[in-house]
């Protein structure tokens, strides 16, 4: 398995973490989707937000963005007082459809990341153009910069959306299931890109996924969601039978197979639970030749 080099959130004492989530809870449709979730991420750290379908990954990301109604708790960006909505946080939403005839090129979408929230018509500016070009280069998207975004492949769209989110130089980058619907190669490329961006640009990156494996080589920390609660820590601290059994409220086994991790409901666990399906399925596909 690839080396994990954890960068501690409080490596430099005195500086606030890039992202601090404190006692966050959320109720949706009368159900407690998140309960007392707390964790912190330092600049340059990359963390996985792992959980099966409906675990509350999207909800937690929306709380961090300040978009989730009916949530409690505190979210600080760079130690800043909470409540400053969406400032300093870049976001790549869970997969959405872009029509192929949408008259917006990749570079237009990236430019909207600079000032898409401002009123008035943008004046053509050289600085702006160069900034967009530099960002496209950083995510290796120059090749298709002039294509319509809706015509790009899933992996290419992810790069453009990452550039859109990063061009305003946020301290924190949130990505909601960016690896869904990518093939293995694009998956590796996107994870490697995010790890590089986190390191080079000193950004805290939080990536949601239902499978932990693609993120293993790059992940400094993991936030594992189940039953509304979160287990947080280094990968080897969290992805353990004792910790996850406690979180799920029933026995689970953590198997290591060819450098991959498989989480399955143990003998006492509910057969066919979400958990078994989500993880065993994802892994089966990749282990079999």
């Amino acid at each position, binding site marked *: 398995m690839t080396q994990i080099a954890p960068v501690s959130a409080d490596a430099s004492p005195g500086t606030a973490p890039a992202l601090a989530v404190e006692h966050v809870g959320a109720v949706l449709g009368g159900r407690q989707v998140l309960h007392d979730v707390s964790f912190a991420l330092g600049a340059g750290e990359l963390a996985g937000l792992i959980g099966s379908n409906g675990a509350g990954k999207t909800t937690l990301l929306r709380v961090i*963005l300040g*978009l989730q109604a009916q949530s409690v708790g505190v979210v600080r960006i760079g130690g800043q007082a909470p409540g400053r*909505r*969406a*400032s300093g*946080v*870049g*976001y790549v*939403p869970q997969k*959405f459809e*872009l*029509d192929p*005839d*949408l*008259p*917006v*090129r990749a570079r*237009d*979408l990236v430019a*909207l*990341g600079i*000032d*898409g*929230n*401002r*009123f*008035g*018509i*943008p004046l053509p500016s050289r600085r702006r153009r160069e900034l967009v070009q530099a960002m496209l280069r950083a995510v290796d998207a120059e090749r298709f910069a*002039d*294509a*319509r*975004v809706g015509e790009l492949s899933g992996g290419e769209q992810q790069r453009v*959306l990452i550039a*859109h989110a990063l061009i305003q130089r946020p301290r924190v980058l949130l990505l909601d299931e960016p690896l869904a619907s990518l093939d293995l190669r694009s998956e590796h490329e996107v994870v490697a890109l995010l790890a590089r961006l986190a390191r080079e640009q000193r950004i805290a990156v939080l990536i949601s996924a239902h499978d932990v494996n693609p993120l293993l080589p790059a992940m400094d920390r993991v936030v594992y969601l189940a039953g509304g609660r979160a287990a947080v820590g280094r990968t080897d601290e969290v992805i353990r039978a004792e910790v996850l059994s406690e979180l799920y409220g029933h026995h689970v086994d953590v198997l290591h197979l060819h450098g991959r991790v498989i989480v399955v409901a143990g003998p006492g666990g509910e057969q066919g639970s979400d958990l078994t399906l989500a993880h065993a399925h994802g892994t089966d596909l990749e282990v079999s030749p």
Partner: protein
Amino acid sequence: MSSVLHAIVEPGFFGSAQVHAALAITGAAALLCGVIGVFTVVRGQSFAGHALSDINATGGSAAFLAGISPVWGYVAISVAAAGAMEAIGIDRRRGRDIATGIVLVVGFGLAALFLFWDTTLSGASNATNEVLFGSIWTLSPGTVPIVIALGAGAITLLAVIYRPLLLSSVSSELAAARGVSVRIVGALYLLALAAAVALTCVAIGAILSTGLLIGPAAGALHLSRRPWSAMASATAIALAASWLGILLAYDSYYWPPVGNGWPVSFFIVVLVFLFYAGARIRAARG
């Protein structure tokens, strides 16, 4: 040479005050439709735009009953209908289409009644034709400045909300994450759309005004990859169709039945269709 010109442009075209008014009004409508139509198509709201246009028949026919200029009827009903659509919630797609459809049908029912009263009670015998298919040759002189002001106001509004509107049209989630008030931007866009359909109704009537709103924009999406050039192409198509349509309608006074011009709106929508088809063919050829 001049005889060739005469064959195309019948005498008196450029000197006629009616022609000037018609060119000004369709020009304003085409410019506004070209710009806003691109957003309407991109947002997948063609049906809402269509309903908003059609329901102007209710406003126009009511204005005839009240004895005021139909322009005010169009503006009032467009803004009211846009407000209703905003209240229903434009984002819940299926619910929106159903609610829009039902409101539209009720509006048409009312229009049928009002037009019946217009022609029987108030003796406005031409009301049906004017409301449904436009009345570009018989406008009262006061209409032109109203239409121009309305068009200028709507274009200014669109220029102000341009970036947030474009971003939320691409993805409301991206826009919300960027701090855009998606709801407010959507409501302002609907207001501009209401103005656009109201003044298009003056030009070509309630039934056909969608043609100018959707057709040029849909054609432009086949020709352009960028937002600006899509709006420019849509405006160019809308303007060309409108002004050529007016020219042909003017010429048609000399066509059978001589002395009765063919309807302007007919020419305009046919030309819009031809441009649209041309754009599709061009795009298909690569």
